[in-house]
């Protein structure tokens, strides 16, 4: 699965994207899986109220959203466009 990071999440993780074999089937499962891998993830994901998620380029509100058939998950902070 392709995982993307933007803005300060990208800076904390250190890459803008990575390809990973993952077991998790939900967004929250993926976060928990990542956090176990390396401290940089636990720092980046320490407060989920600042985390926004897109699954296959669609914003999702519920962290329990399934990612079983997903190709691309993006994590980023609250948006500040306009």
């Amino acid at each position: 699965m392709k995982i993307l990071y933007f803005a300060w999440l990208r800076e904390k993780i250190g890459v803008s994207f990575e390809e990973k074999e993952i077991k998790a089937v939900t967004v929250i499962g993926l976060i928990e899986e990542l956090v176990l891998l390396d401290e940089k993830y636990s720092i980046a994901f320490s407060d989920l109220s600042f985390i926004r998620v897109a699954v296959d380029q669609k914003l999702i509100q519920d962290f329990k959203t399934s990612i079983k058939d997903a190709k691309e998950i993006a994590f980023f902070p609250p948006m500040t466009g306009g």
Partner: protein
Amino acid sequence: MAKEKIFCNLSISVQELDFDIQYEIDNIKRRKKNFGGLASFLGQVRDSAENDKTLLFLELEHYPDMTEKEITSICNDALGKWELHDIRVIHRVGKLIPGDNIVLVLATSSHREEAFKAVEFIMDFLKSRVPIWKKEHYENNSSWVKSKKSDEELLSRW
């Protein structure tokens, strides 16, 4: 008033280049001479007065595969709500200095109220629903712009 379905021209650009409002309006006129009324919003990079630091430049990062899709979806929502002839959205990304244009939203309608509402609606959603992030660069440091609770709260009015 019977709501007639109007063909609406929707055009969205996410770009590093600057833009010219008169050129954009002339483009709309070329397609449809009579648009009635045109409401617009133009956003600029402001000097951040925080801590008396001088903003050198702003860096806008975005999620290229998703940005235009999200803006299109917001504009389609606007088309479902109001009778519009044209929507034009330009959002700049990359490095911008104070005074530079960031965003332009144009909407035309035979009813001025509908054009105003559409522009406000699109601006509100651009602020907190489109994957764009701003980083402020100062002489000795830089920081990501924090999202405003007030921007999020504005969405509830639609």
